[in-house]
């Protein structure tokens, strides 16, 4: 058993439901007790979804516990089939059904003989995988199911499209800024003469899945979801894929370079036309994205050397780390992710970009790290935003888990060239607020705050401050005050001083200044 107050990634069935309800006309039936259909609320509120979430529960109650589900699940599937005629019904296991060890495959077999919809059980082990891994697996499972079948029925069209085309894999509900990213992603190759073949799962229709393999290549914008599908397509259909996240100027340029490479392999044989994107990248970087210019401008000069802590899912945390360090000259003291299953790759990506790497699912560990480092700004999830609030450090939200406020109505992609603008704003605003506070402090604006130890877990030290010395840190601007105070205390402990006088503070200051 584990004591937990908060979790970054949800349980497995949430991932399955997210994928299933992203496809058009797919219904998911959960084998779960009353109240577990909470996904419907999340989707309807955070994404402000205007249609009924296509998820129902086949309720597990006392009777099911005593006698097994018997006809119940099968009846629920047939009923949904008659009522709404979905293309596919995904029977979703939860923690409850995995403890009960009911034979979901059997239910599926019985139900599919009578229903017009296709029925499959989601192949997800509740105790082994989390939300993101489950989503990845379910997407692969559905894709495989339809591609295999079309191959058996000989209706699959294996010819690649005439013009270069790509599939976008891994856009789904309710993903962090996914809808906006999708629009931006479609534009990105679109402007360079590449057609988008299909986007899955968001808005994708199962009828067209058989044509998935007609694209020239696949792109997987987010590491967490889509890689399994892309690997499957590579193995079975020989489709290459790009797993670079086009987030930030450098990554986007890499991404487009990759596209160029992949496209030219075919282009030379089909149309004898070679694609060259150098000019395109150059133009976009100069004129569409303001981020390159921004990092050169004096605004960004002010940010040079400032400290930041980053935490989020593997995709966003790694990309933002790269942006801060390589594009803006900000010092990343710590970069971390909660995607434990992807730790190796994450380490690789942020190698050399930050002082330390943290891979954990425990929010108190993240909080304590932030409190110890005391960066000028945090970039993290909603949890880090709240940690920042408590210890008075500004935070920009860069990754799920998120609130409704992170599902903006306006256009806010994180990917592509417009994405670089949005990210620059986010970063600059977060730091700038800290600066504003600093200026107020310098000019004595609201300098009535008491000095408090900026730590989440209070560890009391036996150090006294004389009243005069106590006043000393108040002269220091708020955002570095805690740090100076702590330096003073640690210097005092090192020298076995138990009472801090004004002299001690000056000694400490001299020592710490380079």
């Amino acid at each position, binding site marked *: *058993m*584990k*004591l*937990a*107050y*908060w*979790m970054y990634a*949800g*349980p497995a*069935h*949430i991932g399955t439901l997210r994928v299933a309800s992203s496809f058009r006309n797919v219904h998911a039936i959960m084998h*779960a*007790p*009353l*109240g*577990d*259909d*909470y996904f*419907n*609320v*999340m989707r*309807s*509120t955070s994404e*402000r*979804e*205007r*249609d*009924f*979430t296509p998820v*129902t*529960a086949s*309720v*597990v*109650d*006392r009777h099911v*516990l005593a006698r097994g589900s018997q006809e119940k699940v099968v009846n*629920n599937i047939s009923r949904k089939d008659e*009522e709404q005629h979905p293309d596919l019904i995904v029977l979703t296991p*939860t*923690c*409850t059904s995995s*403890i*009960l060890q009911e034979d979901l495959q059997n239910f599926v077999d019985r139900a599919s003989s009578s229903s017009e919809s296709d029925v499959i059980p989601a192949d997800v082990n*509740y*105790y*082994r995988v989390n939300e993101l891994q489950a989503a990845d697996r379910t997407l692969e499972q559905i894709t495989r199911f339809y591609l295999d079948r079309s191959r058996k029925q000989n209706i699959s069209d294996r010819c690649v499209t005439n013009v270069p085309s790509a599939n976008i894999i891994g856009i789904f509900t309710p993903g962090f800024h996914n809808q906006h990213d999708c629009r931006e992603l479609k534009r990105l190759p679109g402007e360079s003469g590449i057609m988008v073949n299909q986007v899955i799962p968001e808005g994708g229709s199962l009828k067209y899945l058989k044509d998935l393999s007609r694209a020239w290549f696949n792109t997987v914008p987010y590491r967490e979801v889509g890689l399994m599908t892309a690997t499957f397509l590579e193995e079975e259909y020989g489709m290459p894929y790009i797993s670079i996240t086009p987030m930030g100027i450098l990554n986007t340029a890499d991404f487009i370079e990759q596209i160029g490479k992949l496209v030219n392999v075919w282009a030379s044989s089909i149309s004898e036309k070679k694609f060259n994107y150098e000019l395109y990248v150059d133009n976009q970087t100069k004129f569409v994205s303001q981020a390159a210019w921004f990092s050169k401008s004096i605004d960004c000069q002010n940010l040079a050397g400032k400290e930041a802590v980053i935490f989020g899912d593997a995709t966003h945390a790694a990309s933002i780390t790269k942006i801060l360090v390589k594009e803006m000259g900000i010092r990343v003291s710590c970069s971390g992710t909660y995607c434990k299953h992807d730790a190796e790759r994450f380490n690789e990506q942020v190698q050399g970009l930050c002082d330390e790497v943290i891979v954990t699912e425990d929010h108190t560990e993240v909080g304590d790290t932030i409190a110890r480092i005391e960066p000028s700004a945090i970039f993290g999830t909603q*949890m880090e935003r*709240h940690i920042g609030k408590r210890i008075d450090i500004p935070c920009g939200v860069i990754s799920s888990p998120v*609130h409704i406020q992170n599902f903006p109505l306006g256009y806010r992609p994180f990917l592509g060239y417009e994405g670089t603008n949005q990210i620059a704003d986010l970063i600059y605003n977060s730091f700038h607020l800290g600066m504003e506070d600093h200026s107020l402090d310098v000019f004595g604006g609201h300098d009535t705050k008491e000095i408090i130890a900026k730590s989440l877990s209070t560890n009391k030290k036996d150090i006294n401050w004389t009243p005069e010395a106590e006043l000393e840190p108040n002269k220091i601007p708020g955002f570095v005050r805690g740090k100076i105070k702590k330096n003073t205390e640690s210097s005092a402990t090192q020298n076995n001083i138990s009472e801090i006088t004004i002299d001690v503070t000056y000694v400490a200051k001299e020592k710490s200044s380079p």
Partner: protein
Amino acid sequence: MKTLEIPTFECETGNYHTFCPISCVAWLYQKIEDSSFLVVGTKTRGYFLQSALGVTIFAEPRYAMAESEEGDISAQLNDQKELERICLRVKSDRNPSVIIWIGTCTTEIIKMDLEGMAPKLEKQLGIPIVVARANGLDYAFTQGEDTASAAMTHRCPEYNHCITNREERGATKRVSIDIATNDQIFGDKNKSTRCNLVPFGSLPSSVASQLNLESRRQFVSVSGWLPSQRYADLPALGEGVYVCGVNPFLSRTATTLMRRRKCQLIGAPFPIGPDGTRAWIEKICSVSDSKPDGLEERENRIWGSLSDYLEILTGKSISFMGDNLLEISLARFFIRCGMVVYEIGIPYMDRRYQAAELLLLQRTCEKMKKPTPRIVEKPDNYSQVQRMHELQPDLAITGMAHANPLEARNIDTKWSVEFTFAQIHGSVNARDVLELVTRPLRRRSDSLSGCRNLSKQKVDV
């Protein structure tokens, strides 16, 4: 108690949306200040809690998950040792006066003997451990509180005549602090000890003192609440104590109070709306031989002050999809406000515990000359939506899963969970209830009425 038969009871498939009953920790941990809640179960429950409770999760709440992992399910780990380790941590982190274990579906299915382990660990830790099985296999949403208070009932001290007088004086003192400014209206204080009354149901302390005040006006003193603000202040129970529910979902607690603690239950309508509050007080008075005084004038005065809201509500129709068991009382109040109720969905209907409320509903319908609504137990959300497309009510009281989709289909909605968290008890709060329910009706603007349907799907009627 007499069971009332209303011919329009129905029971559907039970395929409806509601909150998991463990959500009761959200308000109970705030109510019982010195408590600590430990939800024993899987990630699913934890994810639900953190998503449902939103901001409160960031405020260092006094609840946590004991998250079962694969080793716990397959019994490779010893439950008792695991719980001991976790409870020790909770004890050192928060130092609570009581730890309340919330059992979930998981603990039910793997038959974890929480009730058996609690007394052993209680001895070891020196902290009382109360076990409430609030799981989605048996209960819906607010019934979670019912299981928790029923479990707490066993921890209340024994009511004893010798110490009662002392205790009662103490209680009277507490009450009179709340209402010190109104002291003069009560006259002789000795009059107010005719009956030993313990209302049950968790209410915010301000609402509880408002109800205390209402009964004090009729010279009936309240000797304690279940649950109390602090675990240490649980009221004394026993023969000779009258108990009275303030919420419609507390049938288990009521049963426990009667059968196990020999208390006398006052079966009254619930103090929601001015009509409900008056009926509640009157019933209490009738038991304690106190003659109700000025109740009618008071009720009329409150109705008068609500006239602006009543104007909006009169003649409007409403449907309850049903998820929190407050439905009967709210429907009764809204009918009295002049609304027409098409359907009352309700997760579970205890006809004995709610008998007085059902009777008042029937009388209200007769009095207001409105049709008796159909009461649908264990509703089926899909069929309900179909019915709603046919009947087109002016307002649907529903959960968040359906609110936005219904709004997109041009049916105004009010989120039902708000009624659980808002202050809705007593005459004073009647305005708040109507404020909630009229909000969707008041905000309707004509500027967007060109778009009758904003749904992206085809509506199939």
